[in-house]
Structure formats: C-alpha cells, structure tokens
C-alpha cells in the first residue's frame, strides 16, 4: 500500500522575463489501487504538475511538499524517484538516438530491480509486453522513440509501465493523438498494470473519452495552476456536457 501526497505544491519556470509561477498550491493524495483523473484546459499546468513530481530540471519548486509513503520526493534525484516507485508516461516521449529499445528497457529494469534480469525470462517478458500492446517485435531493435508515430510512442510508454511495475503512475495525456483502437489497446495496458500491481494512477487528460476505458475513482478539475473542483466519476460527465468555460474565467 503506497500513498503519494502532494501538499500545497507551488512551481515556477524560468523564462526570459524572469520566473513565472505556474502551480499555485496543488493538493492531491493518490493511494495504491486508486485512479484519479485530472482534467483541465490546455495551459492550466497539468504537465507542469507531472514533470515536477518526476523531477524535471526545468521546474523550480517554490513551496509545498511531495511525499511517497512519507519519504520526501522533492529531495530525490530523477532516477531515485523512479526507484522509489514513481513513473511518468510522458505527453511527448523523448527520442534517444542510437539507443535501442531493447537496451534501454534492460538498462532501466536492471536499475530498478537492482540486478540484471535473467536473460531468458527477460526476453519473453519483453516479448509478451510488446505483443499485449500490439507493438511489432522489430521495435526492440529500433532507437528509443525515434521515428515512432504518436500512437507508437504512447504504446511504448505503457509497455514500460507494464514492465517496470511502479507503485504510482502519472499518465500525461496518454490518450491524446490516439485513434479508437489504439486508445483501447493503451487503456487495456493501464488496466492490466492496475490489476497486476495494485497501481495508483494519476490520469491527466483533456478529454473524457479515455475515462470510458479507464474508470476513475476521483475526478479533479484543474485550472490556472490549481485544483478548482473535485468529485467522483459524475464530475467527468458534467465536464463532458459543459466544458471548462465555467472554470477558466479569471
């Protein structure tokens, strides 16, 4: 049983015109087995929240706290956060030239498990994970995210989620740019990871579409760098009907 606690988190980014405050005090608690949807308009700070939890160097934490089972996440390096059990499926997964998917996955698994996985077992583990997400076997020899389509990148993120078995996963607009089939495949992957590892999920999305496949226990509406409304799944239905207009007026 794990708990990710975000308390009054304030984050700014450095710009040419000085630091700009983006997160203005975010409170969220995510426990193992729970699925929280964060919904909000573009530019409201959703990715900033995701990156800040993962430790991206671009963001400066100016206040508040993030803890995982009481441990101070904000003091951890990026890799330590992953080792502590956090995972971020990125909105824009990064291309790493010359590094094969297979080498990348094995290096990551070795780092997270503390020892190199047994080769035989690992090969079949990867094969199964790829098949489950309809990723062609040839992708193992491709360079990480290089030349992948938008949908392929997202499936590759969820494959990592299944292989690396985190405690809490943040999925940043994993649904965007996916057609119906890909959305279903990706959602099934997330649901498998939930079932297999009692994963806690922070599902960031702009649209309600993915919530038909991944059922949220809680919905948080995000606007202007903070949570402005919270509720159960019925809140998503309200957003579907009314949009974000009510929340974005300043």
């Amino acid at each position, binding site marked *: 049983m794990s708990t990710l606690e975000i308390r009054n988190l304030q984050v700014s980014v450095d710009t040419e015109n000085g630091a700009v405050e983006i997160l203005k005090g975010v409170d969220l608690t995510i426990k193992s087995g729970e699925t929280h949807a964060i919904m909000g308009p573009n530019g409201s700070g959703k990715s900033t929240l995701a990156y800040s939890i993962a430790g991206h160097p671009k963001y400066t934490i100016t206040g508040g706290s993030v803890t995982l089972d009481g441990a101070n996440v904000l003091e951890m390096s*990026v*890799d330590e956060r992953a080792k502590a059990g956090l995972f971020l499926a990125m909105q824009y997964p990064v291309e*790493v*030239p*010359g*590094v094969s998917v297979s080498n990348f996955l094995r290096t*990551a698994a070795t780092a*997270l498990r503390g020892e190199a996985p047994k080769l035989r077992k690992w090969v079949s583990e990867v094969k199964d994970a790829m098949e489950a997400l309809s990723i062609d076997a040839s992708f193992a020899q491709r360079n990480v995210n290089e030349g992948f389509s938008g949908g392929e990148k997202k499936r590759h993120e969820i494959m990592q989620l299944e292989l690396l078995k985190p405690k809490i996963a943040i999925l940043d607009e994993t649904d965007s740019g996916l057609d119906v089939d890909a959305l279903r495949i990706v959602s099934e992957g997330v649901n498998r990871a939930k079932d297999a590892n009692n994963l806690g999920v922070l599902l960031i999305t702009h649209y309600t579409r993915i919530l038909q496949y991944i059922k949220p226990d809680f919905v948080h509406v995000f606007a202007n760098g903070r949570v402005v409304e919270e509720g159960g799944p019925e809140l998503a239905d309200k957003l579907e009907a009314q949009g974000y207009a009510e929340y974005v007026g300043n």
Partner: protein
Amino acid sequence: MSVLTTNILVPHGREEDWRFTPLNRLKGLHDGSAAVAEHRSLSMDSEVTPGVSFERISRELLLSLSLTDDAVMNRVRELSSDVAVLKIAANTEVSSPIHLSRKTFDLNAAEFSRVLIHVGSNARATVILANTGDTLLAEEIEFKVESGAHLTFVTLQEWDAKTVHVGKHHAIVDKDAMFKSITVTIGGSVVRLLPTVEFTGPGADAQLIGVYFATAGQFFEHRIFVDHCVPNAKSRVNFKGALSGDKAHTVWIGDVFIRANAEGTDTYELNRNLLLTDGARADSVPNLEIETGEIVGAGHASTTGRFDDEQLFYLMSRGIAIEDARRLVVRGFFSEIISEISNTEIQDRLMQRIDNELSKVGA
C-alpha cells in the same frame, strides 16, 4: 638528423592548413628535427589468401600516385626507404576483412611510413588497420581503387597517451568504384589525419565517416578533402565527435570542391560534436566550393552541442542513474558510425574504450 634532398617548406602555424595544429607538440615531425626510427611497424595479421599480397617495395620502384604540398607527407616520401604495398588483384572478392596493425612503443624516434593499398578493378575488400602502442608516426596511405572495385578501409587510432600521429589517407577512386573509410580516433596526444579523395572516373562513390573522442589535453584533427573533378560522382561525409575535460580540442575541416566539369555531383557532409564538459573546444569548418550549378545536390551541416537534458531526463525517469544515462547517450551518439564496422568484437572494444574515457573524467 636526416639529410634532406629537397626543400620542404616548414609550416609555422599561420598557413591555412596548419592554423589549428599545435606545431610545438608535433615532436619535430613537420620540421625535420625528429630522429628517424629504423622500425617498420605495419604488419599484416591476416592469412594471405589468393589474389592478396603484402610486401615491401623499394621506393625507387614505386612513385607516389598523388601530389602533395603537405610538409609532413613530403618528409614521409623523403625518408621512407620502402613502401608497404597491399595488393588485391582484379576481380578478387576477399570475404573476410584483411587485418593490418601497428603496435610500437618508441617515443624517441619517429617512423615515416609510406603505404599503398591497391584494389584491382571489380575486386572487393575490407581492410582494418588497428593502431595501438605509444609512438611517433608520420604516415601516408594511398589507395588506388580501380574501376568497379569496392574498398572499405577502417582505421582505428587506439593509441596510448603520448602518441603523435600525423597521417594522410588519400584515395584515388576510379569509374564506378566505391571507397568507404571509417576513421576512429580515441587515443593519442596529437592526432592529425587527412582523409582525402580524388575521383578519376564518373560514377565513383566515396563515403568518409568517423568518430573521435578527445579527453583532457588531447588534440585530434580531421581534415577532409573531397575533390569532385569528374562528372556524376557521389560523396558522403559524416564525422561525430565527443569532447570532455580541460583543453580537449578537436578540429574537423570538411572541404569539398566541385569543379566546373563535375556535373551531376551529389555530395553531403556532416559534422556533429558533443561537448560533455566545460573547458573543451570543438572547431568545425565545413567548406563547399562549387564551380558548376549542374549538380544533383550539395550540402553540409555542422552542429556542436551539449548533453540533451530531455534525453537524460527521459532515461533517468526510468530509474537509470545519471552516469549510466550519459553513457547510453554517448554510446548512442557514436553507434551510428561504430555500428558500420562489420566486426562486433571491434565494436565492443571501441565502445569499452569510450566508456573508460568517459568514466575517467566523471562526465
């Protein structure tokens, strides 16, 4: 001290061709002050197969194939009493790579070495020259690739720390022939190499690729020249370099000359440098001179940058520690070129050396 029979202009450093090179570290290779070594380090490690021969021929019997105004190369021609000649007879297909090597430990006297690699028409071969040891070497390798022949030449500078190596690798590529060179420079104190190509028949193809990795205090210069002096020839140049540590210095010059008669030329050259730490310097000068507009394409690109924070973040967000993430990125950067060497043992050895250099500086 050697006695010179011709006047060789000693470079002083202001000449265009020498302006980056630290002449004071050349141990006299350029000005005649170096003692001349007796040894001939080049040896052939592969079995001699039918159609392949390796022998030394008196220099009087073998004139140089190309002109040069390079001071060090003229000294090589002056001072080497014989020429090592590797010959692949016409129509011979050599199935496995021919391994040549130099391995000398002598920093007191300089070797002046002339080499000719002659590939007869329609022959095919790969030649791998591995340089190890710690030595002073001035070297001229001329390649004659006859019509329709294919030659791949891999040259590995895996020297120890004090080596000074100045070399010119000049390929003369005839009609419909293909010359590919893979140049790897990861060891030595000063290495200055001139991979150059001259086409002698239409439809010729040259691909010059390479990697270099300079750490603190090392100077590696690669000065490429492709002379498009015939119609319908193609050339590709792609060099990638990484630098780390104080006063690591690399120079890449890519000169491509498309002469007035070289219609249908297709050329592209690329140089990418990765600066891993402060205090290192990468000079990169692509230079395209075009005398005819009737070409298929001509272009160049040059970039020098640091570690990509997004790449490191992505890898680390999967639990990979920063040192391992950097190692992956650097290996990935080089693998485009290293993977072209058709020998996994050598690939692994080079990657291992690159890892070692990387961990030395704690980059």
